[in-house]
C-alpha cells in the first residue's frame, strides 16, 4: 500500500471525511494492522539480536547463554535465520545441543536413557504389575486421546520434560507424577495409593564384591575376637560401610582399612600352603627330547631337566602371530613331555614351538617387553595403551630374562642367528648334528653373529651384526678407540688372524656356568672347562676381565662369549660403545700399558685368592667362591638380581680366579615374599605385590572379555589360571565375575559406588534415614539371613541373579513414613529418570600461552 493511500485510509478512519461508522471502524482496524506490521519490522530492524523473540527468561542455570543458537541448533546467526527453523531438520537437533554440556551416556534419548533391552524387560515386568492395578478413567482417556506409546517408541527430546523460558526460578528437573504416569503401564497416583509391592529390593543385582556377611559373622569374626577379646569385630557396620558418592550408595570403606588384616597374605601368597606362590609367566616347558633326538629333529639346545609346563601367558605371546596360534592349538593336544606316540607332524609342531619359544625369548631380550604382546587386543579390538602394556609386563626387568636365557639357553643368539640366516648354519654345521649332546653346531668363527644388547636407555644395538671390511667407519673407529680389545690384544689395533674353532656351540643341555656376572653367564664349563682354558689362552686375564667389564658397561650381558672371528667383528660387535655406558666409557679409557694388569680394586690379588681357596678347603663344604673348574653349576647357579644372589667381582673372571658365588638359604620365591619377579627352576614367576596388583588387574582386564567359558583360547587359559580356585593373588575370591553377552567375562574390581548404581531406576539416600533407626541400627531394615545361598549365586555369571545375605526390604517398612500426611511420596523421591546419570564436564580452559 502506498503512503498516500495509507494516509487516505487514516483520514477516513478517523472520521475526517464522511463515511459510515462501520466503514470507519474497519479502516481504523486496517490501519492498526498495518501499524503493527510496520512496528514488528521496525523492531526487527532496530533490535541487536533475536532475544526479543524469547518467550520468557531462561532459568538461572542457563541465564549466561548469550544467543539463541547455543540451544536452538537451527536458529542461525542472522536476524532472520531463525525462520529456517520452520523447515525442521532432526527433531533432536536442539537436544544434541543440550548434551554438549550435560553428558548423558548412550542411548541418551531413549526413555530413561536405558537400552531397548532394559526397556523391554521393564515393560514386560510392569505389564504384570499393571494387570493387578485399577486404571483410572483419566488414564484410559489419555491413552485413547493422546497415546504416548508412539512418542516413547522414538527418541525423546530433552524439551519433552525440561521446558525452558519459564522463568529464572523454575526448576527444570522437576518431573510430575502425571508425567511418569503418561508412559508407564502401571499407573497409580502415589506411593501409598497403588504403588506395587517391592520385589527383592534392593537386591536387583548382586554386589560386585563377594562378601559373605553371614559367614563372617558366624565364623571369622568370632575367631578374631578369640584372639583379641578386648575388641569387637567389626565395631559397627560403619567400620566397613560408609555413605559416599552422592550419599546414595553405602559403599565399602576400602581393602586396606577392612580386609587386609586377614586377606593380604592370601594375595601375596604367604598363606599358600602348597604350590608356587608366584604366577609362572615365562617358562621353558619340559619336552621329550629323547624322542626328538631319535627322530633326528633339530630343536637346538634345550634344558633336559625342565619339567615346567607351557604357561598360559606364553601361549598368549606365542599366539601373537597366526603361525604361533596354529602351533599352540596343535600343541595343546599333545603331551610335550611324552612324545613317544606323536606322529611326524606332531613332532614337527613341537620343534616349531620350541623355536617359537626361543624366538620369544630372543625378542624379549632384543626388543621391548611390550613387543612380545604382539597384536593383542582388548575386547573391543583396540590395542592396549601404554599403561596397560606396562601393567601387562609389570616392569619385567630385562635382566631377569637375560639371566634366564644365560642359564637355560646360553647359545640362543647363535641359534637364532643360524635360524635366521641358514647360510651361517650351513657353514657351521659341517660338524656333528645339533641334536646330539656335545655336538658343536656353531657357525664358522668368521661368520658367527653376536648379540649386542642395548644400553640402559633401551637402545638396541642389533641382534645380529657381522662386521666385515665394509663395515661402517664408526664401527671401526669404535674398535680402534677401544684400544686393545679381544681381537687386538697386543694393542696394535690390528686384528690378528684368529683361527680358533667355534667357541659357541649348540647343545642339547646348556653347559654349566662357571662364572656369572650380574646374572650373565660369562664363562661356561664346556668339555672339561676347555672354554675357560681357551679363553684364558686367547685372552690374557686382565684383558678378559676388561672385556667382561665392557659387556657390563653395555648394560647387558646377554650374549655368550663373543666369537673371535676377526678383529673387526670383535671390535665392532662386542665392544661397540653404547650410549650411557659409564663403565664401558671407563673401560675405554684404560691406558694401553695397563691393559694386561688386573684391577686391584675389583680383582682379588693372588694372596686373596689363596686365602679364599684355603678358607674353602678348610670349610670342606661348597665354597661360596667355587673353583673355576669346580662343579659350580646348577640351575640356580646364575641367579639374577631378583633371586637374591650377589654378583661376583669382575676380576674373578680371570682364568685362574675361582667362581665366586654367594650361597643363600633363602630361595628365590621367599626372597620375593613381598611380590615381584623371580626365577626358579625353568620358569620366571611373578608374585603379586598386594591388593590392586596391576599385573593381575591388567591381565584379567585384557583376557576377560575374550575368555569364553571353555577356556580354549590362550587368553581364556590365562583368565582361567588367574581366576581359578587356587589362583595366585586370589582376586576372584572377593571380586565377582560377570558374564558378558559376547560370551566373555569381566571381573568386578570396583565395589558398590555411585558409578555402579548406573542403570538403576531406584535411588535411596541412606543418610536421612539414619535418625529414625532404632536400637538395631542397620538391622532395622536389613535383616541378616544366614541360610541364603549367597555364595552359590556367584557361581554363575548373571549379576542380576542375585541372592543376598540380607532379607529384602518390604514396602510396608517405607510406608510407615511415606504417606499422604507425612513424608513426601512422589515418584521422584525414590526413582530417577536418567538412570545412567547426567554429568557436567569440566569446562575447557585455554592455557595462558594460547
Amino acid at each position: 500500500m502506498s503512503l498516500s493511500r495509507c494516509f487516505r485510509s487514516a483520514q477516513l478512519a478517523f472520521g475526517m471525511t464522511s463515511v459510515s461508522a462501520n466503514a470507519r471502524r474497519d479502516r481504523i482496524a486496517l490501519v492498526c494492522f498495518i501499524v503493527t506490521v510496520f512496528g514488528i519490522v521496525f523492531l526487527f530492524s532496530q533490535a541487536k539480536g533475536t532475544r526479543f523473540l524469547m518467550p520468557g527468561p531462561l532459568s538461572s542455570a542457563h541465564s549466561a547463554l548469550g544467543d539463541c543458537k547455543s540451544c536452538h541448533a537451527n536458529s542461525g546467526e542472522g536476524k532472520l535465520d531463525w525462520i529456517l527453523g520452520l523447515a525442521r531438520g532432526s527433531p533432536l537437533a536442539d537436544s544434541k545441543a543440550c548434551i554438549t554440556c550435560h553428558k548423558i551416556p548412550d542411548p541418551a534419548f531413549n526413555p530413561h536413557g536405558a537400552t531397548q533391552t532394559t526397556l523391554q524387560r521393564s515393560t514386560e515386568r510392569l505389564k504384570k504389575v499393571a494387570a493387578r492395578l485399577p486404571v483410572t478413567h483419566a488414564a484410559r482417556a489419555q491413552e485413547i486421546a493422546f497415546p504416548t506409546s508412539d512418542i516413547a517408541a522414538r527418541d525423546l527430546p530433552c524439551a519433552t520434560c525440561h521446558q525452558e523460558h519459564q522463568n529464572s526460578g523454575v526448576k527444570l528437573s522437576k518431573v510430575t507424577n502425571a508425567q511418569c504416569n503418561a508412559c508407564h503401564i502401571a499407573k497409580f497416583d502415589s506411593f501409598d495409593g497403588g504403588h506395587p509391592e517391592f520385589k527383592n529390593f534392593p537386591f536387583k543385582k548382586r554386589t560386585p564384591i563377594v562378601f559373605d556377611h553371614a559367614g563372617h559373622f558366624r565364623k571369622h569374626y568370632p575367631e578374631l575376637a578369640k584372639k583379641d577379646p578386648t575388641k569387637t569385630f567389626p565395631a559397627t557396620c560403619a567400620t566397613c560401610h560408609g555413605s559416599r558418592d552422592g550419599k546414595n550408595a553405602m559403599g565399602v570403606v576400602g581393602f586396606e582399612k577392612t580386609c587386609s588384616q586377614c586377606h593380604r597374605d592370601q594375595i601375596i601368597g604367604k598363606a599358600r600352603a602348597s604350590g608356587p606362590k608366584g604366577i609362572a609367566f615365562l617358562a621353558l616347558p619340559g619336552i621329550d627330547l629323547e624322542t626328538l633326538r631319535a627322530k633326528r629333529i633339530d630343536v637346538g639346545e634345550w634344558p633336559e631337566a625342565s619339567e615346567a609346563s607351557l604357561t598360559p601367558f606364553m601361549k598368549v605371546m606365542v599366539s601373537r602371530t597366526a603361525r604361533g596360534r596354529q602351533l599352540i592349538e596343535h600343541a595343546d593336544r599333545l603331551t610335550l613331555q611324552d612324545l613317544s606316540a606323536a606322529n611326524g607332524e606332531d613332532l614337527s609342531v613341537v620343534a616349531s614351538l620350541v623355536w617359537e619359544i626361543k624366538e620369544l625369548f630372543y625378542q624379549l631380550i632384543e626388543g621391548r617387553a611390550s613387543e612380545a604382546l604382539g597384536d593383542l587386543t582388548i575386547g573391543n579390538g583396540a590395542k592396549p595403551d601404554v599403561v596397560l602394556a606396562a601393567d601387562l609386563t609389570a616392569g619385567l626387568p630385562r635382566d631377569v630374562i637375560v639371566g634366564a636365557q644365560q642359564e637355560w639357553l646360553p647359545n640362543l643368539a647363535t641359534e637364532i642367528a643360524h635360524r635366521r640366516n641358514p647360510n651361517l648354519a650351513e657353514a657351521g654345521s659341517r660338524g656333528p648334528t645339533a641334536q646330539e649332546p656335545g655336538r658343536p653346531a656353531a657357525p664358522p668363527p668368521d661368520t658367527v653373529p653376536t648379540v649386542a644388547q642395548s644400553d640402559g636407555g633401551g637402545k638396541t644395538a642389533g641382534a645380529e651384526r657381522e662386521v666385515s671390511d665394509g663395515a661402517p667407519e664408526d664401527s671401526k673407529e669404535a674398535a680402534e678407540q677401544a684400544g686393545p680389545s679381544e681381537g687386538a690384544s697386543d694393542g696394535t689395533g690390528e686384528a690378528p688372524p684368529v683361527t680358533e674353532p667355534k667357541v659357541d656351540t649348540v647343545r642339547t643341555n646348556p653347559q654349566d656356568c662357571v662364572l656369572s656376572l650380574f646374572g650373565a653367564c660369562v664363562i661356561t664349563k664346556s668339555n672339561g672347562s676347555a672354554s675357560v682354558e681357551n679363553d684364558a689362552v686367547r685372552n690374557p686375564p686382565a684383558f678378559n676381565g676388561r672385556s667382561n667389564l665392557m659387556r657390563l658397561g653395555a648394560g647387558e650381558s646377554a650374549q655368550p662369549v663373543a666369537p673371535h672371528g676377526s678383529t673387526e667383528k670383535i671390535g665392532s660387535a662386542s665392544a661397540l660403545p653404547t650410549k650411557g655406558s659409564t663403565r664401558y666409557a671407563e673401560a675405554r679409557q684404560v691406558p694401553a700399558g695397563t691393559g694386561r694388569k688386573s684391577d686391584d680394586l675389583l680383582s682379588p690379588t693372588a694372596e686373596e685368592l689363596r686365602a679364599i681357596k684355603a678358607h674353602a678347603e678348610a670349610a670342606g663344604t661348597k665354597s661360596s667362591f667355587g673353583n673355576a673348574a669346580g662343579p659350580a653349576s646348577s640351575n640356580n647357579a646364575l641367579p639374577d638380581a631378583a633371586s637374591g644372589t650377589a654378583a661376583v667381582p669382575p676380576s674373578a673372571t680371570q682364568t685362574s680366579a675361582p667362581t665366586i658365588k654367594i650361597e643363600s638359604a633363602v630361595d628365590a620365591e621367599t626372597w620375593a615374599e613381598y611380590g615381584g619377579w623371580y626365577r626358579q627352576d625353568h620358569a620366571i614367576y611373578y608374585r603379586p605385590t598386594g591388593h590392586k596388583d596391576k599385573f593381575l588387574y591388567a591381565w584379567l582386564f585384557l583376557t576377560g572379555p575374550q575368555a569364553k567359558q571353555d577356556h580354549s583360547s590362550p587368553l581364556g587359559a590365562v583368565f582361567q589360571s588367574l581366576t581359578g580356585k587356587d589362583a595366585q593373588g586370589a582376586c576372584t575370591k572377593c571380586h565377582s565375575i560377570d558374564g558378558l553377552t559376547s560370551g566373555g567375562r569381566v571381573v568386578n574390581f570396583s565395589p558398590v559406588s555411585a558409578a555402579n548404581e548406573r542403570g538403576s531406576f531406584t535411588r535411596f539416600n541412606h543418610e536421612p534415614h539414619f535418625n529414625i533407626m532404632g536400637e538395631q541400627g542397620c538391622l532395622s531394615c536389613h535383616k541378616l539371613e544366614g541360610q541364603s545361598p549367597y555364595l552359590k549365586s556367584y557361581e554363575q555369571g548373571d549379576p542380576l541373579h542375585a541372592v543376598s545375605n540380607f532379607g529384602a526390604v518390604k514396602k510396608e517398612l517405607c510406608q510407615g513414613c511415606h504417606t499422604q500426611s507425612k513424608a513426601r511420596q512422589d515418584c521422584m523421591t525414590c526413582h530417577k529418570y536418567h538412570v545412567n546419570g547426567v554429568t557436567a564436564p569440566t569446562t575447557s580452559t585455554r592455557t595462558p600461552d594460547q
Partner: protein
Amino acid sequence: MLAAILQVAIFIAISSMLFWLVGIYGSALRDPRYLDGWILAVGMLVQLMFHVANRRARLKPSSAVRWRRFHVSLGYLLIAAFILHTDFTLPDTGLEWALWSGFVVIALSGVFGVLLAWSLKARMVLDEHPGYEHIARRRAELARDIHAVVAADNSDAAGSRLPQVPYDAWVRELYARQLDDFFSGPRNYASHLVGSPRPLKRLTDEIDTLSGYVDRPCQDKLQTVRELVVRKDREDFARVHLGLARAWPYLHMPVTYSLLALTVLHVVVVYAFSSGAW
C-alpha cells in the same frame, strides 16, 4: 433468566472440559501450550470470520443474532483457553506483553459490549429509544418543554386581595438553580456509566420536597417538571450507553487486527524455535 443460567452452566462445563483436555494432553509427554495455543488461534480465526460475515454477507436478522450469540459464547471459551495458554501467569517479555495486552483488551472490550447489551436497565431504557443520533434533538425538546412549563404563570393574582405566596417563583428558582443547567446538556456521565441513580434521585427529591410547600397548581407543575427531569435523565443514560455501544467496537476491532499480526509472528516464532516437544 433460565436461559442465562443454562448458558453459564454450558460455558463452565465446556471450559472445564477444555482444562481437563489440556491437562491430560500435558501429561501425555506433550507440551500443553501447543494444544491450547492452537485452540486459541483457531478460535480467534473463527471470531474474525464473524466480523467478515457481518461485513460481507447480508445476514438475515435471525442469522445475525445467532452469529452474535456464537461469537459471544466462543469468546468466553477463548478467554478460558487464553488463561490456560498463559498458565495463569503474567508475561515476561515485550512480545508476550503485546500479545497478552492485545488479547486482554479485545476480551475486556467484548465482555464490556456484551454486558452493555445485556444490562437489564439498558434494555428497559433503550428498547424504545430511536437511536443515538436523536438524543441531542430530544434533549433540546425537553429543555424547551421545561422552560415553557416553568415560565407558565399559574398564580391567580386578580382573584386575590392578599399578597400571594410566590410558588411560581420558587419553582423558577429551582429551575434557575439546578434544572436549567441540567437540561442545557448531557450530564452525570460517570453516574450513568456505573448505572447510579443518585443524581436523578437528588433532583427528584428536591422537586418532591418543594412540592409539599406549594399549592395544587404548582404541584402539578412540579410533577410535569419531575417527569421532564426523568426523561432527560434517560436521554443522558441513553447517550452514555449508546455512545459506549458505538465506541467499544472501535477498540475491539482494531486491536483484533493488530493481535492477528502479532499472533502470526508468535506462531512462526514458536515453531521456528521449537525444541522437539509438541
